[in-house]
């Protein structure tokens, strides 16, 4: 799930009274915007106006756990992709890999490479979606901009139409690659136990090689945009690194045998907020390590580290709550498997002022970059 973190001040929050004498006791944000999924936030304030308790609620349930039962296993990659149409490729391939495990088959090398190509392409275009459409406008357009402008349209106005076209064009090309193999880009159909449904024809290879080259340039350009729009602005850096926005949980990410980030395959590694390894396991052992907790105020369940037991919504080294996604992925690994591009990947957010920061901090405002 791509999540845009709301940033104070929340001008659009309902229930906020403008009368100076009576501070609002309750701030409601409904719906949460610029993220995939349905959410609502209720914040309760104390007399001083500080947050006393906040509830991030998911107001719906579809019940995939229930209605997936009793269906042919090979239908699962196409059914579970409907968990999320923004990251269908993730669900599709997770389910496809489960089929490999179920049938005890290894895909042949070419099929494995196709899956990795599709998945890494997805990682790139999805991060671009987050940066330019979902979360990025908070920074690029600015946290103080009026809500009507804090979106992709406002972002294009800010960075210019040419840059906007570049982003849109690159995402289109990347998504066309996914559709080439997957039939559809939203809800691809390529996954089969032990393989993929479609091969790459040799005459299409040069086009994709060119795309890979262009993608690298695009990634480096995006990094520059990020550095200029966010890191060069001391106000934003202050905001990102502020104690109020620091959140220390455990972190989970997939790593290869050298503990480097891998998007497609490997073991799940969990570290605590101090960087110490908590556990490491193969996906098929998830029930030994992860449990789900139920609260009365949300339809979504709360996964936590089973060994540690549910300890409530507390942070710190001992918490049983873990984060996933980009920041967590970097925290859970010792680095990237490929050499860093100019400008470096690690260190951008961990130490926004420089290149060598302390490795394990939690800055949710940067969690998706």
């Amino acid at each position: 799930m791509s999540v845009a973190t709301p940033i104070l001040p929340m001008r659009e929050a309902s229930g906020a009274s403008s009368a100076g004498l009576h501070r609002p006791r309750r701030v409601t944000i409904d719906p949460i915007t610029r993220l995939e999924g349905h959410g609502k936030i209720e914040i309760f304030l104390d007399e001083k106006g500080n947050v006393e308790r906040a509830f991030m609620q998911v107001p719906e349930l579809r019940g995939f756990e229930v209605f997936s039962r009793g269906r042919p296993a090979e239908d699962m990659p196409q059914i579970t992709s409907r968990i999320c149409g923004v990251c269908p490729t993730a669900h599709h391939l997770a389910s496809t890999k489960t089929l490999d495990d179920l049938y005890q088959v290894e895909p042949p090398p070419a099929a494995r490479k196709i899956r990795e190509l599709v998945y890494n392409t997805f990682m790139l275009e999805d991060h671009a979606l987050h940066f330019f459409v979902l979360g990025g406008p908070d920074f690029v357009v600015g946290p103080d901009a009026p809500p009507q402008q804090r979106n992709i349209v406002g972002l294009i106005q800010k960075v210019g139409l040419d840059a906007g076209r570049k982003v849109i064009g690159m995402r289109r090309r990347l998504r066309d690659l996914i559709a080439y193999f997957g039939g559809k880009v939203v809800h691809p159909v390529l996954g089969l136990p032990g393989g993929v449904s479609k091969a790459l024809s040799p005459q299409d290879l040069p086009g994709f090689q060119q795309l890979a080259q262009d993608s690298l340039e695009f990634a480096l350009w995006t990094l520059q945009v990020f550095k200029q729009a966010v890191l060069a602005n001391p106000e934003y850096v202050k905001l990102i690194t502020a104690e109020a926005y620091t959140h220390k949980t455990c972190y989970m990410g997939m790593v290869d045998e050298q503990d480097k980030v891998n998007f497609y395959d490997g073991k799940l590694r969990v570290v605590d907020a101090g960087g110490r390894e908590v556990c490491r396991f193969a996906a098929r052992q998830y029930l030994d390590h992860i449990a789900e907790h139920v609260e009365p105020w949300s339809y979504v369940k709360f996964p936590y580290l089973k060994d540690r037991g549910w300890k409530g919504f507390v942070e710190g080294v001992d918490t049983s709550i873990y984060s996933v996604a980009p920041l967590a992925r970097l925290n859970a690994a010792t680095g990237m498997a490929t050499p860093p591009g100019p400008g470096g990947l690690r260190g951008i957010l961990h130490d926004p002022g420089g290149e060598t920061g302390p490795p394990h901090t939690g800055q949710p405002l940067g969690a998706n970059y």
Partner: protein
Amino acid sequence: MNPTSKPKVAFYWCASCGGCEEAVVDLAEDILNVVEAVEIVFWPVAMDFKKQDLEAMPDRAIAAALVNGAIRTSEQEEMVRLLRRKSQCLISYGACAQLGGIPALANQFEREEILRYVYQEAPSVINNSGTYPQPATPHNGDTVTLPAFRNSVRALDQVVEVDYYIPGCPPTPALTKAALDALLAGRLPPRGTVLAPDVALCEQCPRLESKPKDLSLDAFQRPHRTALDPEKCLLAQGIPCMGPATRSGCEALCIKGNMACTGCFGPTSRVLDHGAKILSCFASALAPKEPQGIDQALAGLPDPVGTFYRYSLARSLLRRKRGPSQTQHFIRGNPP
């Protein structure tokens, strides 16, 4: 152009996956023209407008609202009623809104069965206190609320009147663009029209030539157990393909991915029940005529509801499982 003189457009999602939102973003370069031509007044996935902004608008102020997702909760009912009131034209966008979609597969299970499994019985859940989501949770004299979880999943037009339908899981950018162009030009067909070609997918399929007139199938195959000929009609190879009973308009995307159509574009206008239509197509394609041979062939379709009604259970004649008791509610909600 003065922004207020542009037609206002809203996008909203109910029980859906966000794929329909991506389909709109996949207009790619064309989205710049859309943004130029209309004023988007509500779009939770991409813009920061809130429910209260929508409530503050005069009735019928929105030219067109495109709503995706099926309806399961009281909040989704409220939101689509609100959007209906505020909009001149309400467009059902995608398979979930039109037919129930994948979320409607939950209609094979009773409401209590779903809640019990999700919050109590699933192997990952540890819930010794027997906690279930509640309509109201007290907090220091205040209340935190959740919408009611209804007995079944419904399609959009089972809750509010719908003017047009754009089919697909998700719809394609090309169909979306054509619909928006028609809307802006005031060239829309009669109300109630599904905005996609009204012929079966096979007509658009690159493999149509290899589809025999008389299929004469002895058995159905599973796609991973068959070496598929990437040129030949899938149904002719025994793979259950919903193409003959499914509306075209997607340009045969799954077939181009060398997999069968699962029916996401729903039926053509001449068909009342999509699943029944597929069933009858398959029945006439079977070679065996005696019970034993028929049973053997049908053994290749172990999940008939999930195969024939993959996206259309809510809008079918079956609609949902009707259990003996609907009285015990973990979360109270009026049955539809």
